[in-house]
């Protein structure tokens, strides 16, 4: 089973990368970009086949390692 973890900075946390991308897009004459935010994505190939167990396992990974919950929030998506 495959899991995809999306990690974004929490609302309100400064996102310098997003800000720089916004500027750069404007400088390239792309109009109509009101906001850009950058995050990370981590794709995991798991041996686990049970959905619930996989979710629990990946949540644990996020809390312990993948995300920095001080400033980031995460989202887990499972795919087969």
């Amino acid at each position: 089973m495959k899991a995809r973890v999306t990690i974004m900075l929490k609302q309100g946390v400064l996102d310098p990368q997003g800000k720089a991308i916004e500027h750069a897009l404007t400088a390239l004459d792309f109009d109509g970009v009101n906001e850009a935010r950058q995050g990370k994505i981590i794709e995991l190939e798991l041996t686990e086949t049970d959905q619930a167990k996989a979710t629990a396992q990946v949540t644990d990974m996020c809390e312990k390692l993948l995300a920095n919950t001080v400033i980031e929030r995460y989202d887990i998506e499972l795919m087969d």
Partner: protein
Amino acid sequence: MKASVIVFPGSNCDRDVAVSLEQAMGQKPNMVWHADSELPPSDLIVIPGGFSYGDYLRCGAIAGNAHIIRPVKEAAEKGAMVLGICNGFQVLTETGLLPGALMRNADLKFICKDAPLSVETSDTPFTKGYKQGQTISVPVAHHDGNYRADEDTLDRLEGEGRVAFRYADNPNGSARDIAGILSENKRVLGMMPHPERCADPLLGGTDGKALFTAIVEELS
């Protein structure tokens, strides 16, 4: 000889390379602001090291789209010499003036130290002051110096004598130990190591000096 150093927001080796150029040329280079759309007449364009735009998004990506890049490319097409050091090398790959890409170092850490390099070709206007096969020591200081290109590109670079420098002790995982590469006409050089950091005996080495001297000889 006329030289220009391009300054992006976040460039931080612009002054350092200007000092080395001045020592070699006897005159100060032009410092050219990234937002300018025109380049003063230049035989040599230097894209310095640093963190243009904070290295946000991808090293060199945002700088690769700056206004000044179009005239830089035009000048390169007309045969001007272009030297990209560190972040400058990253910018040159982003603009397409050099092939490939520079990824995060294999061990994921920023690395700053003297790196022994082997000079792979002395048959270029940049490296003619060295002997082919000579080992020189030049500092590296980067987080993303891990050179990548597909196998065909790598073969072609090697086949055409376009690998300028290789690491004697690969610090970052670069494909085929590549530390610096040249354009087809060998007038564009991108390299991760910093020759401007070893062109003054007080700074602990002078192996970089021959590169600047060669450029000045070529262009005067």
